[in-house]
């Protein structure tokens, strides 16, 4: 992890985390290793806490505001199609955040989050068709449904960890997918279409892709901020402790399964909200949107982005969807191949994912390059 991030998280001032999808370092230590598993970071020195943190913290805040501003400005300058592609990435990023909460922060590899994503999405579509087109109601309902679904199914999964947890979540994901695929009430394999456009606070239907994009962006930023807060809270520390050394946590008097259950429910809620967003921008949802492939891509995004970091996996989510939905067509449908290559490259070259590329390391690269250039000029 880069020193800058570590400093910033420990240190004094902090970014108004409420507004920043990119800002949250998720915190130095945690961001760390889990990607490669084999790598133990032992460096990470830094001395000061207080003042020294202000610089990077402020810089990060600036970057965060800039990124949100750019995302918000997209509808003004871009055509509707790329804008809706960005909305889709944002919704998917919310799902990826939920996977990151489990995998990156708590060390539980999860392949079942697509189930709660789907639960939230179907809830939003059904509410849109039958009850109200209010986006806020739909999203909250999706969130609650994700939470409830995770609470009902999660208590089995959280008793295990590691590969067993992975298989249990995979089983949950596949079962829920099967249900969605065969249940007539939710359109079975055809999915649910005909969701009316969303409205907000009783206003007119938001037909333009730009308005939907702003709504999705606002919710995604709010979810990001909430997750960032959890990660930095004492509970986040508890989760990292479980990731690092569960037996020791028990010896300290913790109940790891309970803490895991909590984060599992939380991740379910986040995934549910992501599902609602996804449904709102597509106005359609089918079992194909919540299958194994989606769960796997979400986990892949976390690995590419850097498990434990929050903004890294969001970037990973954008990258993965970009390759799958947009790039794939132009390279003769070889998107999965590209993703596979990217995955292998990341695992070997960037054990901490995209998140490991920032700060000190990037500055180091730039400095080295600068030095080389200067030397070349001099000679």
């Amino acid at each position, binding site marked *: 992890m880069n020193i800058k991030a570590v400093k910033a998280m420990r240190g004094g001032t902090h970014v108004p985390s409420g507004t920043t999808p990119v800002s949250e370092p998720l915190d130095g230590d945690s961001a760390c290793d889990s990607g490669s598993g084999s790598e*133990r970071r*032992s460096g990470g020195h*830094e001395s000061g806490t207080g003042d020294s943190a202000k610089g990077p913290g402020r810089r990060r805040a600036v970057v965060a505001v800039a990124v949100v501003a750019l995302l918000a400005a997209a509808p003004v300058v871009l055509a509707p199609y790329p804008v809706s592609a960005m909305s889709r990435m944002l919704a998917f990023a919310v799902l990826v955040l939920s996977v990151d909460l489990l995998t990156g922060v708590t060390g539980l590899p999860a392949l079942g989050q697509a189930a709660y994503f789907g639960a939230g999405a179907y809830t939003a579509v059904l509410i849109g068709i039958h009850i109200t087109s209010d986006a806020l109601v739909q999203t909250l309902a999706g969130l609650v449904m994700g939470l409830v679904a995770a609470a009902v199914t999660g208590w089995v999964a959280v008793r295990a960890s590691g590969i067993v947890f992975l298989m249990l979540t995979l089983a949950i994901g596949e079962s829920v997918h099967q249900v969605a695929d065969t249940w007539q009430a939710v359109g079975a394999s055809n999915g649910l279409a005909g969701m009316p456009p969303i409205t907000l606070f009783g206003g007119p239907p938001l037909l333009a892709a730009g308005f939907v994009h702003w709504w999705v962006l606002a919710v995604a930023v709010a979810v990001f901020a909430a997750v960032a*807060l959890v990660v930095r809270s004492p*509970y986040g*520390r508890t989760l*990292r402790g479980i990731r*690092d050394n569960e037996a020791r946590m*028990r010896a300290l*008097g913790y109940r790891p399964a309970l803490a895991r259950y909590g984060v599992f429910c939380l991740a379910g809620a986040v995934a549910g909200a992501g599902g609602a967003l996804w449904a709102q921008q597509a106005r359609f949802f089918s079992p194909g949107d919540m299958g194994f492939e989606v769960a796997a891509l979400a986990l892949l995004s976390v690995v590419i982005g850097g498990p434990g970091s929050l903004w890294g996996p969001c970037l990973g989510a954008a990258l993965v969807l970009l390759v799958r939905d947009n790039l794939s067509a132009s390279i003769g449908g070889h998107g999965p191949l590209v993703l596979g290559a990217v995955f292998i490259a990341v695992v070997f070259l960037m054990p901490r994912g995209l998140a490991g590329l920032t700060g000190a390391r990037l500055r180091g690269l730039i400095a080295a390059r600068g030095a080389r250039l200067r030397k070349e000029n001099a000679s």
Partner: protein
Amino acid sequence: MTPQRVTPLLELRGLTRSYGSLTAVDSVDLALAPGERHALIGPNGAGKSTLFATVAGTLRASGGSVLLSGQDVTSLPEGERARRGMVRTYQHSSLFLDCSVLDNVALAVQRVHRVAHRCDRAARRFRHIDTEARRHLDSVGLLGRAQDMAAALSHGERRQLEVAMVLATEPALVMFDEPTAGMSAAETERFVALMERLPERLTVLIVEHDLDVVFRLAERVTVLHLGKVLASGPPEAIRADEAVQRAYLGSARTEDLFAEAGGER
């Protein structure tokens, strides 16, 4: 030696632990008065580690009972015993290597202060947790490394951190499992000094190979041999005890040891 009227802080009654037909710990009786510094010694294979793990709750007892301040905790899991003030350290330091040194201690502090589940504020806004954790780090001499990763600590420093974590759980009883194993002479010296500074009210049970350390720290010593208590008493008495010398301190004829061991099976 032990005040008889006081309820012992830790009491073992006929504690037994077997692995199949092998009885590693054979009906051990032991009582530790509050504040007592008690060492458990014995030759290799005497059952020290098994006894230790059974008392801590890492292993389940096959028979007998463990009482903490008069309350039976035999059936309680390790975590529940920890919540009741009975904590252990590990022979191989067991830390949160990818967390900062401060976070390692803070994990213990926040559990005791019941904020481990709070997620409404950033961790550093819980000032009292931070202060308390730093105080414990200071008491073991690691305050200067608070922000380093635990993985960056040396072996001796990791043991110091373990002590800070254990103290942070505000225990009544601390059990040290061979704390100076693998330490250099200087590290051992520093560690023993640290042990001598532990708060007086703390009851300590220590399993240790290094007899110099044992005789320096312990007020009472129990010698375990082949799963049974061979002798128990103040260090001077133990040193003089003939059976102990024969079994453990080296003056035994090897034939005796083998004969005895053979007889047990």
